[in-house]
């Protein structure tokens, strides 16, 4: 099924949970890698929810979480109790047959489980192991923990958003996770490329905070070049003028306008019915317009208030002016422009039925990454993985199940 995909001969043992690590392994799986996601019945991925009761488990709520079902497609799922010797042994045997291991357990957990890099390398000298703790695996704060919000805080990026009188402003509650996951996928692929050329594996340490800091790299450049951070300009831009967010006719409907080049200015003036501004030679350059930015913004605001956001956006884009509505995230799967490019595709999954999946943001020779299988139910592929990959017999698998080493029913920790 994955014979044409670029990572078709790559096998990854995936000990990640939440968003960051599973995004990285989804990218691998979408490009054809065989990703074996290891959970445990007593420690399911916390993105399946972390406040379960016997009632929620009976209702299979842990199989109904939209974000979990979005981020774990194309992966195989096994549930192995790694705290038992026989469970650890199964994991090591999978590692022996893998190219890479990726994990984002809390610091110290892998060591406690006896699955440190040294122990993995002992069974597979060519293994790549990538860890993505919040602050990195080395350094004074390496033991510190974090969610996506912590990662955003820790990189200092909130100082780069908002106006001069605003407090440091967070931009999204947990985008740090996704950023960390992208960096992890990128670094892992570099490791895989090197391994394929030379046979050499290695340890990869990725700090999520440092990954996110790249999204604000202009802040560090400004500080390094001039000894001062970039000015906080709110919704204005240091070069593009005008540049702002304008209220449209419907409540809470907003249009972003960004004049990214002087050639866009006459078109903007035409569309908003202010040809007089377009004819003013003083306003033909961004520098000139900056002196009258308040007046220009007021003129755009008057016009925007009369229109629906999408109509205003279309009118400006038709005139060659950069503009876009501030889409609600919840509206994305209805956006016709995404649909026209095939970004969303439906996929059937047990328990939840047909639901949309976002596609890979890239296409290879015109094709997005295929949807090969839905996100695994807890322990769904125990038999397949242990049988096909490790060569265990049905009896051996049944015995492991009887001993509670593997399973498919979540257990609420005592």
């Amino acid at each position, binding site marked *: 099924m994955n014979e044409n995909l670029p990572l078709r001969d790559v096998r990854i043992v995936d000990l990640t949970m939440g968003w960051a690590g599973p995004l990285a392994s989804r990218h691998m799986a979408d490009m054809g890698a065989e990703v074996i996601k290891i959970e445990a019945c007593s420690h399911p991925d916390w993105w399946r929810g972390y406040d379960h009761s016997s009632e929620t488990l009976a209702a299979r709520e842990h199989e109904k979480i939209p974000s979990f079902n979005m981020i774990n497609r194309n992966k195989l799922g096994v549930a192995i109790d790694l705290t038992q010797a026989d469970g650890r042994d199964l994991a090591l045997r999978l590692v022996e047959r893998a190219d890479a291991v990726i994990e984002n357990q809390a610091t110290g957990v892998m060591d406690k489980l006896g699955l440190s890099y040294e122990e993995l390398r002992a069974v597979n000298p060519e293994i790549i192991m990538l860890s993505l703790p919040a602050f990195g695996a080395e350094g004074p704060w390496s033991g510190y923990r974090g969610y996506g919000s912590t990662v955003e805080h820790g990189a200092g990026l909130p100082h780069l958003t908002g106006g001069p009188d605003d407090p440091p402003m967070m931009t999204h509650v947990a985008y740090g996770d996704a950023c960390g996951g992208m960096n992890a996928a990128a670094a892992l692929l570099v490791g895989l490329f090197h391994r394929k050329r030379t046979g050499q594996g290695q340890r990869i340490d990725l700090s999520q905070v440092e990954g996110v800091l790249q999204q604000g790299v202009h802040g560090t450049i400004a500080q390094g070049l001039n000894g001062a951070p970039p000015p906080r300009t709110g919704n204005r831009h240091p070069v593009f003028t005008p540049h702002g967010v304008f209220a449209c006719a419907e409540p809470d409907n907003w249009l*972003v306008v960004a004049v990214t080049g002087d050639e866009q200015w006459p078109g903007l003036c035409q569309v908003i019915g202010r040809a007089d501004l377009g004819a003013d030679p003083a306003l033909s350059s961004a520098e000139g317009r900056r002196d009258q930015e308040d007046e220009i913004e007021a003129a755009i605001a008057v016009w925007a208030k009369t229109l629906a956001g999408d109509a205003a956006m279309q009118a400006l884009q038709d005139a060659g002016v950069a503009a876009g509505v501030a889409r609600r*995230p919840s509206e994305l799967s209805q956006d016709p422009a995404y649909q026209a490019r095939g970004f969303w595709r439906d996929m059937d999954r047990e328990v939840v039925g047909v639901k949309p999946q976002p596609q890979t943001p890239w296409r290879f020779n015109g094709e997005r990454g295929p949807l090969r299988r839905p996100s695994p139910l807890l322990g769904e592929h125990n038999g397949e993985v242990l049988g096909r990959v490790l060569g265990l017999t049905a009896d051996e698998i049944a015995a492991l199940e009887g001993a509670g080493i593997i399973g498919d029913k979540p257990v609420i920790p005592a």
Partner: protein
Amino acid sequence: MSALEGLKVVEFGEGVALGYCGALLAACGAEVIKLEQPVTGDAVRRLPPFAEGVAAPEASGLHAFLSTGKSSVAIDLNNLDGVALARRLALEADLVLDGMGPGKADAVGLGYDALHAQAPKMTMLALSWFGGDGPRRDWQGSDAIAQALAGFIYPIGQKDGPPVIPGGYFAQITGGLTAFIATMGALVGGLSGDEGVLIEQSILEAQTTYTESAGVRFAYDGAASVRKGVNIFTPTYPQSIYPAADGWIGVTALTPAQWHACCELIGAPELFDDPRFITSRLRNDRADELDPLLIPLFRKRTALEWFHEAQARRVPFALVPTMADLADLDHFQAREVLAEYQHPDLGRFTAATIPWKLAATPLAKGGSAPRLGQHSREILAGRLGLDADQIAELAVSGTVGLGRIGS
């Protein structure tokens, strides 16, 4: 050995996303030749941060960061002779990065189909704001526009609006990073014997990685996204930033155990038992009631004290360092988060370096960035075998730029 040693890359077109993808390749050891228009260069050269007192087109620190480790060759791609040179360089490459915009490389004869016919192993990335097809193909983009359409800015800012645009180059860095992922995937496939691949990717769809879960969630529960206020996001709280005695402390307390430890730490154990705030969701809905109780408490101690003591209790607080603080914090120093960059006109400066720590194949830390056209002679002679007279002739006709010599 660098991981990508020997990999030949040619980058043409413009923009931060394209440049960042190339910068990641260069930091991993690839030989990246950046083609720029003579005289004006990449549009990124006109984007801040700028060094004070340095003239265009060399004043942009952003451009220097993105060009570090690359060779700059100035070739006019509006000129048939220039295109012919670019084509010869591209045909020698393992990977071509095209940021000209949809259809433009094809129009000048540098598109994938034309190159692939002669170089079947060559992989090409076509990167653009909105993708190579669809109703927005020819729209004007910008970082703010991509963030807006991706649903990224809507939840940011005051409840009654307007949404707030994060500063800098958020969507473009994300677009370049995502393009790098796709590109590396194709290159790994190449080592398994695959032919070259045309990779098509939009910056908008890369930026959607942050918000796509909300699009999925809507199909499950039909709930519309909301904007609740500055530093308040659904569904949990506190997940925010408070003023400390000397700066800002990032506070995250989601689980009952974290909230309990947080209340103990700040000397308000009664808050944990307060039924108004008993769940994370209730705290989120009643942030207006909770914050007046928390703010005076957080003001009592320094951010560094809160940070270390909370982390000791396994509560994920964080310092919110300013850009100046980053250089002074021991953890970031120990990890060499900032590295030295240099450029003939900008001199030496520090910036956040590409952060992946691969033990066996470490990435370049910082490095040197070229002036516009600094490597034109070297590459035209070394790669294409042109002699000095031929190069001089191309320079006289304006087909190539040879860069400024001296200081």
